[in-house]
């Protein structure tokens, strides 16, 4: 077994997998079940000032693929709707029972120094390992001036982070909203405010579907709907990019990242770690399949590390950062061509029609003579866009093969066409 233990913002964790602040971490019962299943930590469901919020009925919407698999869900839930005292008592109890597991207290408050500071102190006193600032919730709470309403204003990100830093001596995680144009701006603000780490992403503002009978966006609350927060597998590409942007930004070198967004499998986890994440948080995947998914997340990650010869997570953490560059640094002289393996080709024609209609007319249909078809790439026309390989239904049937054209590496700034 590879060593999955790690340290995130100074907090030791038996593996990198925490549950993100959300319904799976809403109360003691869920959290203990998660710990029994093997999760290393939880970010408790976001706590606010008393009186607790009130939620509506009908809360989640879904975006499915045609095979009825969930690509993403959105939600219009608010923060914890149970009293602060009950939550804190439960946190204390779980901390005592599960000494080797991590609990982070998530919080939000209106823009008021005293409110932030008092709440942060109360939560810290329950014995949590760290505090996460929820500056991301893009629905409901933002209409009350909290969540993404704070996260979208860099000065407020910095200020709330600083307020919390000033009153607690445990690590502070600032959780960022993806509903901004440049993630580096709030990340830098969090750093200026003194955050030990940034957690990202929170949910993406969304309408997942419109009910065409009710003529209302889903989820529908008595004939009306509102925009909600989108998460799950579909947001992983957005999260990966934002994590990478922060990891490779020179101005905020050293900022630790607790990566969140669409992590469903060990492979997703490994990808985030390769882009520099110190730890990982999961919400939707647990909501869809239950806490048991942790088994394969840890086993798969160990297996991957064993095969690659990585003993610890640090052995490959951030390994993909150096290869994540600006477009201007790409080699314009690199050439790759599609190659169709005729033995595994099933003659479906998908590559042909994709290239013919929308790419470069580089796949020619021939006749094998016995009524069967034959597909060949015209290398002179192929620009190496990968589209055919992406649409091919047979694994490894279309391979993109780099060709040696004898030309030296050349970037766009150096390119003769760039005058």
């Amino acid at each position, binding site marked *: 077994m590879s060593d999955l233990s790690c340290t995130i913002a100074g907090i030791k964790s038996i593996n990198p997998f925490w549950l993100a602040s959300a319904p799976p971490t809403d109360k003691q019962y869920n959290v203990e079940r998660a710990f029994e299943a093997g999760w290393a930590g939880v970010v408790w469901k976001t706590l606010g000032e008393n009186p607790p919020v009130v939620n509506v009925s009908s809360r989640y919407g879904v975006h499915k693929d045609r095979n009825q698999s969930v690509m993403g869900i959105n939600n219009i839930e608010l923060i914890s709707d149970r009293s602060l005292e009950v939550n804190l008592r439960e946190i204390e109890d779980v901390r005592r029972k599960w000494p080797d597991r991590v609990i982070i207290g998530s919080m939000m408050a209106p823009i008021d120094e005293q409110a932030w500071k008092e709440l942060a102190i109360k939560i810290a006193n329950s014995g949590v390992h760290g505090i996460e600032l929820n500056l991301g919730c893009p629905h409901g709470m933002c209409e009350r001036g909290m969540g993404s309403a704070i996260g979208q204003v860099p000065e407020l990100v910095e200020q709330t982070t600083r307020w919390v830093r000033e009153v607690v001596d445990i690590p502070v995680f600032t959780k960022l909203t993806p509903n901004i144009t440049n993630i580096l701006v709030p990340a830098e603000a969090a750093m200026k405010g003194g955050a030990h780490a940034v957690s990202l992403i929170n949910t993406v503002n969304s309408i997942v579907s419109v009910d065409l009978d009710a003529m209302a966006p889903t989820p529908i609350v008595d004939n009306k709907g509102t925009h909600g927060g989108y998460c799950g597998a579909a947001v992983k590409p957005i999260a990966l990019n934002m994590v990478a942007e922060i990891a490779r930004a020179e101005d905020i070198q050293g900022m630790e990242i607790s990566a969140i967004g669409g992590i469903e499998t060990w492979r997703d986890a490994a990808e985030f770690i390769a882009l520099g994440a110190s730890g990982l948080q999961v919400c939707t995947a647990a909501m869809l399949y239950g806490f048991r998914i942790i088994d394969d997340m840890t086993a798969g990650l160990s297996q991957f590390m064993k095969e690659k010869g990585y003993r610890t997570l640090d052995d490959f953490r951030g390994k993909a950062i150096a290869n994540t560059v600006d477009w201007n640094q790409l080699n314009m002289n690199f050439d790759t061509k599609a190659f169709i393996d005729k033995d595994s080709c*099933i003659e479906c024609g*998908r590559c042909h029609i994709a290239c013919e209609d929308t790419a470069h007319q580089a796949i020619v249909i021939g006749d094998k003579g016995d009524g069967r078809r034959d597909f060949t790439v015209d290398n002179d026309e192929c620009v190496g866009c990968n589209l055919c390989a992406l649409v091919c239904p047979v694994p490894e049937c279309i391979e993109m093969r780099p060709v040696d054209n004898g030309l030296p590496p050349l970037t766009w700034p150096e390119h003769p066409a760039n005058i």
Partner: protein
Amino acid sequence: MVEKPAYPANGCTLSAAQIETNFSDLHKPLSATQAISAADSCIYCYDAPCINACPTSIDIPTFIHQIKTANITGSAETILAANIMGGTCARACPTEVLCEQACVRNHTGEEPVQIGALQRYAVDHLMAKDAPHPFSRAKDSGKHIAIIGAGPAGLSCAHRAAMLGHDVTIFEAKAKPGGLNEYGLAAYKMADNYAQREVEFLLDIGGITLEYGQALGQQVSLKDLQTRFDAVFIGVGLGDANTLNLPGNTLPGVENAITFIENLRQSEDKSELSIGSNVVVIGGGNTAIDAAIQAKRLGAKHVTLAYRRGEAQMSATDWEVDLARSNGVNIELWASPAALNGSAALESISFDSMIIEGGAYKKKGEIFTLPADQVLVAIGQTLSTSELQGLNIEKGKVVVNSRAETSLKGVFAGGDCIASGEDLTVQAVEDGKQAAHAIDQYLSANSETRA
């Protein structure tokens, strides 16, 4: 997924309820969940081989894509636009030698996409909706077409001709429409009176009049129709059945399989039909298979299908032969009927054992006998030519040119009575559709209208 039928055990006969189960759908219709996962296995091929393998060229990838997008009515319309009897074809086509055989999934050793079952799913959805007929008629052409025979060929021709703006009168010898859909296809393929429901649906286009009890050569003559109508289409199928030219072939108990199936299809209560204890079916095609399986499901204790050659020479598909075996039909190969024995009624049947020697089939010189109180003869149907005088007929089929026109001007033909392809429902539907277009062209070329 074949439903478990009941067979007689320990000398008991089947109950009416068991018989009803035995003749309900052979394949249960797909549920919505099953349809989605079946549709998902379709790759959405470009210029898909399955389309070419369908005699009516249904745009299969498109209709399956429409099931995936939950546009199931649109999916049914895609099917029906190419094949107005897509519902029957979904139930009766030997897909294992048509579309599903061409599915590219076969190349990887996977199961092909369940095209037939998906087609049924879509068409059933549309027909259950009680929505207006999906197709509309072009502007009235003022032309009137006579169609002889309300089988798949005639009905398909009628529907397409009506769509193209022509009026149609169908002359049908029998009391019901549908042809072999109503009288010939196995009962478990056409459960719940499907043939009649489909005809009603098809007639909803309007402009089609059906006259029953009107047989060509008896109540109506071709000459008369040629003068009264702007064009004539003949879709009479194959009206004669071959008989066994053997001593004893008139003994009670010897029956043609076509008549047996027709009686079964038409009976109100199948448990009242009499069935032998030892039934022997003669033949190697799908009629023989259907007769044997239905005899078994009706409660026959022993059913043997006897064929004079080997399994490879049978015209029934492998799938059909397997279905017969799994229904408990004993298959006796290389057995050529020699005599039908019995005094007052049939008691047994004797066979010559056959061999193949130097490419020729020969009697081995051995005779064996099977007990039989019922023999069902399924050795082929032929064209009934007496009513088709004046038409050029070759090799037992009406001769047509590439525009479906017979040797008589303005007289067209299609379906089993011509040599277009295999004698299958789907081919008859295609013939009728193509003939309607040919007639349409013929009519606009000869646009001087009759008085």
